[in-house]
């Protein structure tokens, strides 16, 4: 359903005074494609490429003809695309592996290539009618493989060392868990505030952690008009997550 923007501060196009008239062009209602191809062939000179024969594609000569210019631009585009991919690949590898000093415990470099081959093979099988009976397995694999791939890539490219001044990730996790416990938010603070608790005079604002209502006290959504939630139980997050995913998984 079309949604109109609420903001219409200047929603009218002011007519321009003295707008110059549009140029009148001979009406073209029908494209003579044979003459267009013929013109291209005649002035190229085209031999158009015949890639079906597996031969090097002959290119039009001269720089005046539109098709000749277009082919030059397109050929540069292909070269550029190859250079782009090669450059990106080299950059990625330089970040993840150092040939002189491999990361301890790193997976051998060719494993990622083998992984890509495995994905290709599974992709090919998925669309093979002969393998239709195995469809449920492919569905399962499709769900599992991204997780496995993520683990594999993390192994190959381990997280960067943590800056010493930042609070440990685990501490943040624990902190959020503690503040999700009913009533806990009033009594706990993040480890980074420990110094303040022990005598520092500077008061820091308590970080916001969402709802301050203990989960056990929440009532079903039908008693909370407008919440849009079915129930407020520990499965609440799962429910919201599932709805979010299905919405995006068009």
């Amino acid at each position, binding site marked *: *359903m079309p949604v109109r*923007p609420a903001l219409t501060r200047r929603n009218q196009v002011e007519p321009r005074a003295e707008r110059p008239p*549009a140029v009148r062009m001979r009406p073209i209602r029908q494209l003579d494609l044979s003459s267009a191809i013929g*013109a291209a062939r005649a002035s190229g000179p085209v031999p158009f490429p015949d890639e079906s024969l597996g031969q090097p594609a002959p290119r039009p000569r001269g720089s005046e003809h539109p098709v000749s*210019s277009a082919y030059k631009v397109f050929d540069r585009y292909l070269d550029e695309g190859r250079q782009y991919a090669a450059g990106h690949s080299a950059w990625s590898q330089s970040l993840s592996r150092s040939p002189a000093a491999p990361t301890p415990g790193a997976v051998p470099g060719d494993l990622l290539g083998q992984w890509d081959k495995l994905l290709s093979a599974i992709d090919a099988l998925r669309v093979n009618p002969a393998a239709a009976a195995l469809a449920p397995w492919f569905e399962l694999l499709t*769900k599992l493989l991204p997780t496995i791939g993520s683990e594999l890539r993390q192994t190959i490219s381990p997280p960067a060392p943590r800056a010493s001044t930042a609070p440990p990730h685990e501490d943040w996790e624990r902190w959020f868990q503690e503040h999700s416990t009913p009533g806990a938010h009033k009594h706990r603070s993040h480890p980074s505030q420990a110094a303040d608790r022990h005598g520092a005079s500077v008061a820091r604002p308590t970080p916001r952690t969402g709802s301050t209502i203990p989960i056990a006290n929440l009532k079903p959504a039908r008693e909370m008009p407008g919440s849009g939630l079915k129930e407020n139980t520990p499965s609440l997050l799962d429910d919201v997550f599932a709805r979010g995913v299905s919405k*995006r998984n068009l």
Partner: protein
Amino acid sequence: MRTPSVVPELLCEYGARAREALLAFLPQREPRKYLYDLLADYPSRASRHMRPAICIATARAFGAPLEAALNSAVSIELLHNALLIVDDIQDESEERRGAPTMHRATGLPIALNVGSTMSVLSLVPLLGNVSTCGPQVALWIFERTIEVAQQCAEGQALELGWRFDNRLDLTDEDYLDMVMRKTCSYSTMLPIRAGAMIATRRREVPDALVRFGFLLGAAFQIQDDLLNLTGSHERYGKELNGDLLEGKRTLLIIRLLQRCSAQETAFVSRFLATERSAKKPEDVHSLLSLLTRYDCIEATRCFAQALLGAAAHDFDQSLAQLPPSRDREFLRGLIPWVIEQP
């Protein structure tokens, strides 16, 4: 050759599916007034939905179901609308699809925020390709989309830079290179590449197929430049002569500079360098007269026709080898449609 009826039919059918999916995808939360309702503004306006239709039709022509291409089609259409918002700001355009441009309606800061948000959101539907197309294809399309977004920025940079430096020495190849990056890369080449990849699960798409997209897209842009001068305001949906007012280096201007006298070149140079708001209607009229006198409009139209002739050849080399289908005929029918488009 005339546009077959399958072209408007599938533009309507696939465009409606893509638009429905796109609007359902957009977040429904606050701040609606200043962001999320505005994200739906451009996609809700009447448009031809050429890009998602090409993506879906290519996938179907190669044998994939429509649903397999929907994530990519939505992503491409979102990227397109994001680019339009930003382009309109950069070009100081007044109208888009028959209504005021985003920045005219909301002011520059809000429009910029909407455009950048939509750019980022355009990548999100591609994550759905993991389940519909498999991880390998999903990653390939994701990488190509990022590459194409970068090429769009490069094309826009070229066009803006030429205006900034008031360049008068541009060639046909310069123009085609700019158009390939700015328009063809995401309007025709990416939809075709993604559609073919979704259906075939191959690592590479034949060059002839991609080149068909490039030639079609370049002719489309040239025709759009022509319509900016020669179309009717109601059907074009944007202000006429806007390209001249913005000082754009269209093929028409490049042709004129190749043909006109030194004195006329000086006039064109002054005109192009003048700020849009300071351009006089009589100067616009003089420039239009020069374009007519030197037959630039007809020459540009012939240029587009030649590209379409080459596109027809590349179609025969690639898509024509597929089994007959409405989708294949749609893609072939886009060649005359580029010229005859409403």
